[in-house]
C-alpha cells in the first residue's frame, strides 16, 4: 500500500483549532481526524503529539482502547455488522457471509486493494429494525440479501456514502405505546419556567417528592444525587447526560434523542439550575453519530430562544450550555466513571470509587451523571410536581419506563408503561407468540422464563434499563447466553484481572460446550468463575458478566444438557479443529482433510 505523500497538517490544523489544541478533547480530535482520513496515520499521530504536547503513548493508548479508532488502514468503506442476538436471529451472519463473498474479503481484514473491510461490532441499537450495520460509522437498517448486493455494488463503484439511497439510512422511531414521556405537546422552555418558579431548592424538593430513580440501570435516587452534587464544594459543577446506550437490546435513548431532544436538553438544564452548573455534556455513543446534525440543530434553536446561553430565559446569573461528545465504540463508557474518563480524552477505564462523580467527577469537580430518560422525566416533574409524578407507577418505582422491545414479536419498537406492568402484558402488546424467555435489561440483566411472566417491571421486582428481547420456542437459549458472553469478553475494558481474564475464560468455556466438549465439570467451573467475577471485579461489567449463563443454566438446563456429551472432564482441545488453519491454507475441506473419531461419527 503505497500511500501518497500526505499532508496531515492540512486537515488536522482546523480540527486542532476547533478544540483549542487541548488534549482534554483528544477523543473528539481523533474522531474528526479519522472522519477525515479514514484511519489514524502514524504521521498524523506524530503531528498530534507535537501539537497537543502529549506523549505518543497517550494517543496510541486511547486510540487502541476504542473499537472505532483505527491505527491501521481499514478500507475506505468500513462495514460493521451489528452482532446483537436479535440481529443474529434476523439472519445477520448469513448476510455478512454473503457480503464477504461478494467483495472477496475475509471478516475483519481489509481487502487487498484497500477498498473495504467487513467485520462485526457490538449491538448498534437498531434491534427493532435489524439486521443492522454501520458503514463508516453511519447506521444502515433492515438489511436483506438484496440490500447486501446493492451495497456491494456501491462499494465496488466507489460511490460516496452521501450518494447512497437515503432509504438505507432511514431509522424508524417505531413508537407503539405512549405514556407521559412520549406524549406530544411539550413546549420547550415550559419546564424551565416552572423550575424558576420553584427556585433551585424548590425544584430539588419536587424531584425528591417524585421519588424518581435513575433510568440507566442502577436505579439510584435522582434527588440524592442532585443534592449531594449541589452540596459538594468545587470550582465548577457539571451535568453529564449518559447517552452511551451500549446495553444490547436497548434503543429507547435513540428514540428520545431523535423525537424528544428538547425535553432531554431541558432536563439537563434544569439539573444545571439545581446544582449550579454552567456546562452540560451529552455523551453520545459513536453508533448514533448520524443524530449529530439533528441534535446540533436542536441546540442551536434552543440558544436562539435563550433556553441555553447566558442568563437562560432572562434568569439573571444562570448561564448554561450543552456540548455533544461522541464515544467511539466501547460499552464500558456507559459506566459513569469510565464515561467521565472518556470525556476527559482518556481510555475508558472505570475509576476507583469512592470518591464518586457527585463530588469528584469531570475534571475532578462535582458532576451529576444521569441517563437520557431520567433527564426527560424531570421536565414533567417540574411541570406537574413531584407528588403527581409519585402517584404514577408502583410505591417504590414512581413514574413510567420506556422499553425497547425486540426479538420474536410482531410489533417490535418503543413502548412506554407505568412501572408495575407485567411481562405477560408486554408480550401481549407486542404480539409475541410461543415465548419461552425474555431477556430484560440486556445481557447484564435477567433472563425471565415462562413461569415468571407475571413478574412486573419495577425496581422491587425486575429492575431495568429498558431492553426487552423476546425469544420464542424455536430459539436455543444456550446460544443466546453464548452470544452475551462473547459480548462481555469483547467489551471488558481489561483493567482488572478477574474480568479481563475471566470473561475470556467464560467465553472459552461456552465455546467448548458449543463445540461438543462439555461435561458437568464445566458447570462447576462456570459457577466458580461467577463467584470470582462477582466478588473481585472492579465494576458492574465484571459483576454481571456471568448473569446470562447462570440464569440460563438455572432456567433452561436442557439447552445445556444436550451439550453435556461427556460425563467426565474433556479438554477443549480438538485435534481435528487444530487442523483448521492447515485446511484453510491448502484450500481443502474434503473428508481426507479431517480426522474422524467415534464420537463425531455417532453425533
Amino acid at each position, binding site marked *: 500500500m503505497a500511500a501518497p505523500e500526505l499532508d496531515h497538517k492540512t486537515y488536522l490544523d482546523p480540527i486542532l483549532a476547533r478544540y483549542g489544541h487541548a488534549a482534554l478533547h483528544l477523543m473528539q480530535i481523533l474522531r474528526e481526524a479519522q472522519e477525515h482520513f479514514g484511519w489514524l496515520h*502514524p504521521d498524523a*499521530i*506524530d503531528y498530534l503529539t507535537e501539537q497537543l504536547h502529549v*506523549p*505518543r*503513548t*497517550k494517543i*496510541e*493508548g486511547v486510540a*487502541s*482502547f*476504542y*473499537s472505532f479508532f483505527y491505527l491501521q488502514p481499514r478500507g475506505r468503506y468500513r462495514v460493521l455488522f451489528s452482532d446483537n442476538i436479535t440481529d443474529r436471529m434476523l439472519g445477520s451472519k448469513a448476510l455478512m457471509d454473503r457480503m464477504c463473498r461478494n467483495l472477496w474479503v475475509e471478516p475483519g481484514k481489509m481487502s487487498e486493494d484497500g477498498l473495504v473491510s467487513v467485520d462485526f461490532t457490538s449491538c448498534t441499537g437498531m434491534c427493532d429494525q435489524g439486521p443492522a450495520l454501520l458503514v463508516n460509522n453511519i447506521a444502515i437498517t433492515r438489511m436483506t440479501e438484496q440490500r447486501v448486493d446493492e451495497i456491494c455494488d456501491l462499494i465496488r463503484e466507489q460511490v460516496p456514502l452521501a450518494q447512497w439511497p437515503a432509504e438505507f439510512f432511514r431509522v424508524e422511531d417505531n413508537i407503539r405505546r405512549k405514556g407521559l414521556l412520549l406524549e406530544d405537546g411539550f413546549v420547550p422552555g415550559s419546564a424551565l419556567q416552572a423550575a424558576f418558579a420553584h427556585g433551585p431548592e424548590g425544584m430539588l424538593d419536587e424531584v425528591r417528592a417524585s421519588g424518581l430513580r435513575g433510568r440507566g440501570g442502577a436505579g439510584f435516587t435522582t434527588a440524592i444525587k442532585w443534592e449531594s452534587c449541589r452540596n459538594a464544594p468545587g470550582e465548577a459543577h457539571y451535568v453529564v447526560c449518559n447517552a452511551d446506550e451500549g446495553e444490547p437490546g436497548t434503543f429507547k435513548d435513540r428514540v428520545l434523542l431523535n423525537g424528544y431532544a428538547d425535553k432531554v436538553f431541558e432536563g439537563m438544564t434544569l439539573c444545571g439550575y439545581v446544582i449550579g452548573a454552567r456546562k452540560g455534556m451529552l455523551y453520545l455513543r459513536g453508533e448514533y453519530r448520524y443524530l449529530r446534525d439533528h441534535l446540533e440543530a436542536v441546540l442551536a434553536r434552543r440558544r436562539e430562544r435563550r433556553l441555553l446561553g447566558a442568563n437562560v430565559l432572562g434568569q439573571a446569573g444562570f448561564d448554561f450550555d450543552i456540548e455533544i461528545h461522541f464515544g467511539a465504540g*466501547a460499552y464500558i463508557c456507559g459506566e459513569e466513571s469510565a464515561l467521565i474518563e472518556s470525556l476527559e480524552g482518556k*481510555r475508558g477505564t472505570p475509576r*476507583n470509587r*469512592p470518591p464518586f462523580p457527585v463530588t469528584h467527577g469531570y475534571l475532578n469537580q462535582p458532576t451529576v451523571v444521569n441517563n437520557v430518560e431520567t433527564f426527560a422525566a424531570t421536565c414533567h416533574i417540574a411541570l406537574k410536581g413531584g407528588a403527581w409524578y409519585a402517584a404514577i407507577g408502583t410505591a417504590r418505582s414512581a413514574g413510567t419506563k420506556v422499553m425497547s422491545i425486540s426479538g420474536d414479536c410482531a410489533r417490535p419498537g418503543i413502548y412506554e408503561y407505568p412501572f408495575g406492568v407485567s411481562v405477560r402484558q408486554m408480550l401481549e402488546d407486542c404480539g409475541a407468540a410461543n415465548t419461552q424467555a425474555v431477556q430484560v435489561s440486556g445481557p447484564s440483566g435477567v433472563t425471565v422464563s415462562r413461569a415468571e411472566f407475571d413478574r412486573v417491571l419495577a425496581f422491587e421486582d425486575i429492575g431495568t434499563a429498558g431492553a426487552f428481547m423476546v425469544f420464542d420456542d424455536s430459539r436455543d437459549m444456550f446460544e443466546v447466553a453464548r452470544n452475551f458472553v462473547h459480548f462481555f*469478553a*469483547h*467489551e*471488558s*475494558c*481489561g*483493567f*482488572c*484481572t*478477574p474480568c*479481563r*481474564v*475471566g*470473561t*475470556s*475464560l467464560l467465553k*472459552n468455556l461456552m465455546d467448548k460446550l458449543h463445540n461438543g466438549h462439555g461435561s458437568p465439570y464445566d458447570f462447576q467451573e462456570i459457577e*466458580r468463575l461467577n*463467584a*470470582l467475577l462477582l*466478588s*473481585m*471485579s*472492579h465494576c458492574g461489567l465484571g459483576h454481571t458478566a456471568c448473569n446470562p449463563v447462570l440464569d440460563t443454566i438455572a432456567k433452561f438446563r436442557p439447552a445445556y444438557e444436550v451439550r453435556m456429551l461427556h460425563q467426565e472432564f474433556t*479438554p*477443549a*482441545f480438538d485435534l481435528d479443529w487444530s487442523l483448521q488453519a492447515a485446511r484453510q491454507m491448502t484450500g481443502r475441506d474434503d473428508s481426507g482433510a479431517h480426522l474422524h473419531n467415534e464420537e463425531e461419527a455417532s453425533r
Partner: protein
Amino acid sequence: MSKTFTLDGKDVPFRDGQTIIEAALEAGHYIPHLCHHPDFKAHGSCKLCTVKVNGRQTASCTMQAAEGQVVESETEELNSERRALTQMLFVEGNHFCPSCEKSGDCQLQATAYHLNMMTAHYDHFFPNRPLDASHPDFLLDFNRCILCSLCVRASRDVDGKNVFALAGRGIKSHLIVNARSGKLADTDFSAADKAASVCPVGVILPKRRGFAVPIGERTFDKQPIDAYVDTRIARKEE
C-alpha cells in the same frame, strides 16, 4: 491515641489518608498484592489485595482506612479467590519460570507459592508477544507482563518520561513504549530510570547480567514473600 482498625482480629494503627494495605504493611501484616507499591499512587487493578471490610469485598490498596473497620484477609475464601486470580495471570501470559531470569525474585511466582498454587488450572492462552531486544542495555519480554502498570507510573511520576503505557482493551490489553517504531531503543529510557527496576515480574530486564545471583539464593528463596512486609521487594535487593 492513634486510630485503628482490626485486620483478622489484630489491631492495626493508621494515619489519616492511608489505605488499608499501607497501614497493614507498615504494621508488618502481609496482604497479597501485585500492583500496589508503597512509592506510587494506587492503581487497584490486579485485585490480589482484595479483603473484606465490614463484610464487603474491596481492594485494600484503594480503600481508605477508617476507625473501627473490621477487615478480614487471611481467610480460605479470599485466598482461594486470590489463587484463582494468580492462575489467571499465569495463563494469560507465557510464564516459563525455569528459564526466567526473574525466577526467585519474581513477585508473581512468590505470590503463587504463598497461595499454594499447584497448577495453572485454566487452559493457557499462549498469546503471541514478541520480545523487544532493541535497547542496548535492556530487554523487554512482554510474555510475562501482568499489566500492573508499575513501570507506567514509575516512568511518568518519578522519571518524568512516559516511556511505558497500557494500550488495547480487554484481553488484548498490552504494554507499549513511547516510540513510533514501538521499540524501546527509540525511547528516552535509561538504565538509571526508576521504571527500569520496578517490574514485579520478568519483563524489564538488564542485558548481560544473567543469573548473577544463583537460583536458590534469590529474594524469595531465602524467605517467602510474606516475610518481606516491612521492606518492599525492590528495595530488598539493594
